[in-house]
């Protein structure tokens, strides 16, 4: 009889599914499309190496590099975001949009390589006296 009560409740309780093109609400830590900030990227290509789905492409050119992302191949695992030391990658917290043609959502950025940071000027180190054989009084071994 419990099942009949459950069916009755479901019948009048509305549906948990919805008709296309409506989308369900996302959860708090939802992993959506990967977004790229070219200003922060140093072009290390770690993201490409961490992407097992081969959704990220990375091509190097003369003084620049091209970063491409194909959401159709992405599994939204978040490994690229996790491995980005420059914090140039993040994930949207919304459902990916509906698309009808292959590669419609593909994004590509060509970024000029940043000049290498200047090396810090070498400062003369003060001469440290060599330690003596006997420890100073009150000192610890």
């Amino acid at each position, binding site marked *: 009889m419990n099942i*009949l009560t459950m*069916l009755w409740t479901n*019948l009048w309780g509305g*549906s948990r599914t919805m008709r296309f093109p409506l989308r369900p609400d996302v959860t708090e830590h939802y992993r959506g499309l990967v977004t790229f900030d070219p200003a922060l990227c140093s072009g290390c290509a770690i993201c490409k190496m961490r992407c097992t789905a081969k959704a990220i492409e990375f091509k190097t050119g003369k003084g620049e590099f091209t970063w491409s992302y194909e959401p159709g191949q992405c599994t939204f695992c978040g490994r690229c975001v996790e491995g980005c030391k420059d914090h140039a990658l993040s994930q949207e917290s919304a459902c990916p949009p509906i698309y009808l043609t292959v590669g419609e959502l593909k994004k590509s950025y060509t970024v000029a390589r940043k000049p290498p940071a200047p090396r810090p000027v070498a400062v003369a180190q003060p001469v440290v006296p060599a330690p003596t054989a006997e420890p100073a009084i009150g000192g610890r071994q």
Partner: protein
Amino acid sequence: MNTLITSLARLLIFPGLLFAVPAAWFFLWVERKAVARMQGRIGPPFMQPFFDFIKLLGKTTPERGGVAGMLMRAWPLIAVSSAAGAVGLLPVLPASGGFQGDLILLLALLEMPSMCIIAAGFSSRSIFGEIGSAREAVLSVSYNIVFLLAILSIAASQHTFSLSALAQLPSSPLRWLGILALLICLPAKLHLNPFSLPNAEQEIYSGPMVEYAGPELAMWELSHGLEWVAATGLVATLIAPQVTLVWLAILIFIAISFAIVLLLSVTAAATARLQIDTTVRFYWQCTLIFAVLAVAAVLFMRYVA
């Protein structure tokens, strides 16, 4: 001449093809929608069975050579024509004719889609199809004894094998016993839970239907819908009170059929699929006794009382 025209009108217009095909899609939709709503899903839109049919008609089917290919194309057509013929025999309208023994013809026509499914599964040479066919055969043997005994008890209680005569006669308690037995058999006949063994999607990928696609699958779907109309319509004609107004008779027929579809949908949503041995045991041990008692009571009343 008039008999011929009446028969053609019954077969082609009401309750035949012109009524039965939209009714089949409607009943399929009601069943899917009701089960979905009871499971907390939104369910298909109203026109979905029709869209499915049209979509399948537009698809191409793989080339199948030889006798097996020819048979595979023939089975769904035979199933559709048998089910449509069964619907055409239903005495929905008052004084709609009919003949002595049309009940037996109706039972034979109702059984044809099941036979076609068994043959189709074996013709497909698929292991899933063969398992589904074997299940359908075992199930058919199990529920048909009860189904036939139930019909027999009703026919024996009213002293006739004519459907229209059966429908016109006043109902008796024994007739209700037979109707109850028929209702118990309907989920098995229509492959619904808990007796959806031959077309178990999760286990054997729809069994005999696994190798079908395109227009042939569309015909199977249509045949299934027509089976719904014929089987629920048979029970509806036995339950429906006799009225002289044509539109009222049609309305009562549709309302009772609709109620039976809802009842079967609730059963399907509330139960899980049983194993084949449990199903066979259910029909042979529980309901067979029930059906035999009904027939025995009828015969006792006929010859002794």
